């Protein structure tokens, strides 16, 4: 299949392209940008007039719920959701049931994902066996099976000795650890930011200090061990400042923020909206502003969807008992665009945060449209509005704080390995 994408506005941050250029694809690869290769006869032409063409999005955190939680979501539904959102590569955390700590499980997941022929799935293996925070997992075996990094998902390692050893071991082989910074004792039973809103609502709070304390341990141990660490879903102003300092000191640290935290605050909980029960909790206006500043100045590398599909029944409970999480794969692009518009950030800079930057963190060949790279693309209309609703979402998880909102940014075509896998 030879595809010619014509008349689109091409944005490829890695190659510094933001121009009206055609894309030529053959045998699943990008063969040329701007100039038609000699003898190229397209078998399919995509007219991208008034559309933006960019690398397929790379999401650093999307739960697919397989194996184990198929009643919440399935690979098929979530990978459909991914490509409907323009996401062509995604990393999934290891907190499945069973946990991704066995090479066989990882191989099976990779195989089953590949069979779907939709987005590329890059599992994050469990850093410790069963995510219990005690014994290290077989990182090399898991890496061979397809894990691109190791994570504890939302489960903290309380034993700093274990964290130290995990970092030493990962550093030995050059693996990146993906860690969520939350000190578990301070956060115990907490469901909202420990501040004015939690006080009014009578919800148990999680203080900002829980993030700062965990981050201090992680960064200090990373410094000692030379490990490469990625902080998942930063939520506080203080956290941003700590990462900024750590980067200035030359630590091998990167971090992301979820689209939810970039656009929402504790006040969005309103009258106990269980869709706002997220991990980490939504924090203050000031935290949100600092996350935005950090993202603009490069302290925060990337935006993730933190896609966590939850079944409706699990959300129909009082706030604290409602299951944590929100659907996100189909919202990553429009929310990133919304942030860019609000903060007057260029489209190219914003796209970079969900393509090249996240691909670099995962160390996977994705997120750019260099000649000979995989033809994974997202073609979208930046000005078309669509309404977020259970009907418009492909994900089996229909819960999001953005339900009912009209968002700009509609994906028109998604290509994976040179195949059109989604067409609006």
């Amino acid at each position: 299949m030879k595809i010619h994408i014509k008349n689109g506005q091409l944005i490829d941050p890695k190659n510094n392209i933001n121009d009206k250029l055609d894309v030529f694809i053959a045998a699943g690869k990008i063969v040329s940008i701007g100039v038609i290769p000699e003898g190229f006869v397209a078998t399919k032409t995509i007219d991208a007039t008034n559309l933006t063409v960019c690398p397929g999005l790379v999401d650093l955190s999307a739960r697919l719920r397989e194996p184990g939680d198929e009643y919440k979501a399935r690979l098929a539904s979530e990978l459909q959701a991914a490509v409907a959102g323009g996401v062509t590569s995604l990393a999934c955390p290891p907190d499945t049931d069973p946990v991704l700590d066995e090479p066989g499980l990882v191989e099976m997941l990779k195989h089953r994902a590949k069979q779907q022929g939709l987005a590329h799935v890059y599992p994050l293996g469990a850093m410790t066996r069963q995510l219990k925070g005690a014994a290290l997992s077989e990182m090399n075996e898991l890496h061979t099976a397809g894990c691109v990094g190791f994570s504890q998902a939302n489960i903290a390692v309380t034993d700093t000795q274990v964290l130290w050893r995990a970092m030493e071991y990962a550093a030995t082989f050059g693996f990146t650890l993906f860690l969520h910074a939350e000190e578990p004792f301070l956060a115990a039973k907490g469901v909202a930011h420990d501040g004015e809103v939690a006080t009014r609502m009578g919800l148990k709070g999680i203080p900002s200090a829980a993030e700062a304390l965990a981050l201090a341990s992680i960064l200090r141990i990373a410094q000692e061990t030379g490990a490469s660490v990625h902080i998942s879903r930063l939520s506080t102003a203080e956290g941003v400042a700590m990462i900024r300092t750590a980067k200035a000191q030359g630590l091998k640290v990167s971090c992301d923020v979820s689209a939810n935290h970039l656009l929402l605050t504790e006040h969005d909980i309103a009258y106990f909206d269980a869709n706002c029960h997220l991990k980490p909790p939504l924090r203050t206006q000031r935290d949100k502003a600092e996350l935005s500043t950090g993202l603009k100045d490069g302290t925060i590398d990337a935006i993730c969807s933190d896609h966590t599909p939850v079944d409706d029944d699990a959300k129909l409970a009082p706030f604290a008992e409602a299951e944590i999480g929100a659907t996100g794969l189909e919202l990553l692009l429009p929310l990133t665009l919304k942030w860019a518009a609000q903060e007057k950030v260029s489209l190219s800079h914003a796209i970079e945060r969900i393509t090249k930057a996240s691909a670099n963190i995962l160390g996977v060949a994705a997120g750019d449209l260099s000649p000979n790279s995989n033809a994974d693309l997202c073609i979208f209309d930046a000005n078309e509005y669509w309404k977020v609703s259970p009907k418009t979402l492909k994900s089996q998880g229909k819960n999001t704080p953005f339900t009912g909102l009209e968002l700009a940014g509609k994906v028109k075509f998604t290509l994976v390995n040179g195949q059109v896998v989604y067409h609006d």
Partner: protein
Amino acid sequence: MNNPQLDTDGQLRHLLSIEGLPKKILNQILDTAESFVGVAEREVKKVPLLRGKTVCNLFFENSTRTRTTFEIAAKRLSADVISLNVSTSSQSKGETILDTVDNLIAMHADMFVVRHAQSGAAHLIAKHVPPHIHVINAGDGRHSHPTQGLLDVFTIRKYKPELHNLRVAIVGDVLHSRVARSEIHALTTLGVPEVRVIAPKTLLPAQVEKLGVHVYHDMDEGLKDVDVIMMLRLQNERMNGAMLPSSEEYFKTYGLTPERLALAKPDAIVMHPGPMNRGVEIDSTVADGKQSVILPQVTYGIAIRMAVMAILGGGTGVAL
């Protein structure tokens, strides 16, 4: 976002929280309650305002006082009352809150009085029920206990009618207290100029001053010249753990003794939502003393609950 407690005309549809209710509605409830105070003194302690209606007390958390006073209030309004202790029935069989509610709606309940250990439970139910059904929050987690807040200001108004001249101190476990939150909102909404909270830092929630209160950690200082002292219950499970070293130490630092009471204005009144821990938060001589209005609180609680049910039930809400 629309206030879930009010209908499109701004009338009370559910009573979920004092916060967010306009002063006008609080006064409507308090004034209506005045007309019900006398009903208990009649030979036939009943008015027919809710005849033919079914009030369902849905208690997911144990309660004696609140449930009983709601039951009496509904009966005095001539409603049919069912009281369910759900904590001991369907919840333990795994039924969800909303399934329980749906079943009771199918049995034609008109009004739900709900208590639950989780903040937001009453909101969840209110969001779920059809428009003709009303929900009264009888306590949700640490969030709200609006009829308690209302009966407390009703009691204060009885003894100290000039609310705009008062200094009120709330003492004790504000962190875990839905009563404290409701009292604070009721007092500030009705224009009480100075509301103090007195507690150790472990029993105060983050940024409590943003609720419009003055924070004191020293009991003697906090009680100085106040008109009203509202004591909070200290739950047993908080006493001997990480929050407080012991009940003895708590009584020494924050217990209301006759000596401490003397620091307040000479005519100050002492309140407590019950059940009391004598010798932990309050000395018996104070609890039973002449400045105590703890038992009148209970009596007025029935009038307040009648008023809320009558207003929600759609009548004029005035005793005939």
